[in-house]
């Protein structure tokens, strides 16, 4: 299983290969044909890099803040629709009263249980 944060930036290879700079191995089609700027596409690119889903991709939830429930549910929807395997949610779940933590974990799980939330 692989755990990553959801992608926050895009275009790193292009930036590091601009001008005379050289970094890693780069093909422009990474950004044009294999992914777009849409969060589900970016997450799917992570899934593709886990042997096209053979190794489950779980995304992490990030720090606790003001809109934890909304952010956690959005992360779950993106991960599930991208073809991911689930969420690993820590700070949003334990930096609050236990009852609220349980509700948050359950809300995330409900995304994976909801048949209407499909793989894109």
């Amino acid at each position, binding site marked *: 299983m692989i755990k990553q944060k959801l992608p926050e930036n895009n275009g790193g290879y292009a930036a590091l290969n601009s001008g005379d700079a050289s970094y890693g191995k780069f093909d422009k089609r990474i950004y044009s044909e294999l992914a777009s700027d849409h969060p*589900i596409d970016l997450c799917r690119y992570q899934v*593709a890099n886990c042997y096209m889903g053979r190794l489950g991709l779980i995304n*992490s939830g990030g720090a606790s803040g003001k809109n934890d429930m909304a952010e956690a549910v*959005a992360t779950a*929807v993106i991960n599930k629709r991208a073809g991911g395997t689930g*969420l690993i949610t820590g700070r949003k779940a334990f930096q609050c009263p236990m009852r609220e933590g*349980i509700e948050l974990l359950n809300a995330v*799980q409900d995304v994976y249980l909801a048949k*209407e*939330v499909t793989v894109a």
Partner: protein
Amino acid sequence: MLLKPLKQETLAPKLLSGLTKGVFSGRLGQARSSLAFCRVRGILNAGRWVLRNARRLGPNTMSTTIEQYLGDKANDLLNFNHPKIPKSRLHLPGPDFVERIFGPSDRNNRVLVNLERIYSHGRLGRTGYVSILPVDQGIEHSAGASFAKNPDYFDAENIVRLAIEGGCNAVASTFGALGIVARKYAGKIPFLVKINHNELLTCPNKFDQKMFGTIKQAADMGAAAVGATIYFGSDESGRQIVEVGHGALVLPAQPRVQEGQGLPCLGGPHRTGQPPRGHHPGGLDQTEAPGE
């Protein structure tokens, strides 16, 4: 299940708009006035239907709640349907995931059993999906930084209880936190022991993942898996890749853990390039059952 209680006032608009549209399209040939009448009648009927069926609208309730949480992003996230890489190319999660994916692999039987333990547990058991509660504390960073908002979790038992009562597939934490309650809980929820950590007590801070225990120790406490982090792009990533790849080297006194303890490994790169100073770098953590 701790589903949100059904809220009719929030459920109704979605159903109404759907039903109203149906009424409209079925009556397009009729005069405008009768359309309006049908629309009103449709709304009334839909309202009655909602009230009548409110108690058994589980899935709709869930989806409405999800839409509410997504807010402005709901349409973009729920209806996006032109991915660059089509889903037909993917191996997707499902109840048979362990057998379908790892059956043909080189993973040994103990690893498969432990993977099944994780995939079978909790509210997402046997769906192919997983929900994991992770908590780092101790040498990684002080407990106070994590638990100032709820000091209950200074006590490691409460971390495990939150994972159990929250319906998670597994709980991920340190050798210390999980070990101290292992005999009581390792059989009640799969443990995923994080075997390497950053160490943020040194000043200035370092960004390096060091092994804090062995896969054998994790297996001995009854864990179902181990987890490890690699800071890809950091100065030490080469050493971390070797350590994690070998399935947990290396506290100096234990030169090399025997492979084959039967634990899968969950891992992840924190892929950030050189980790920024003064802030926890994102990394890739890998989880595999011990034994890989």
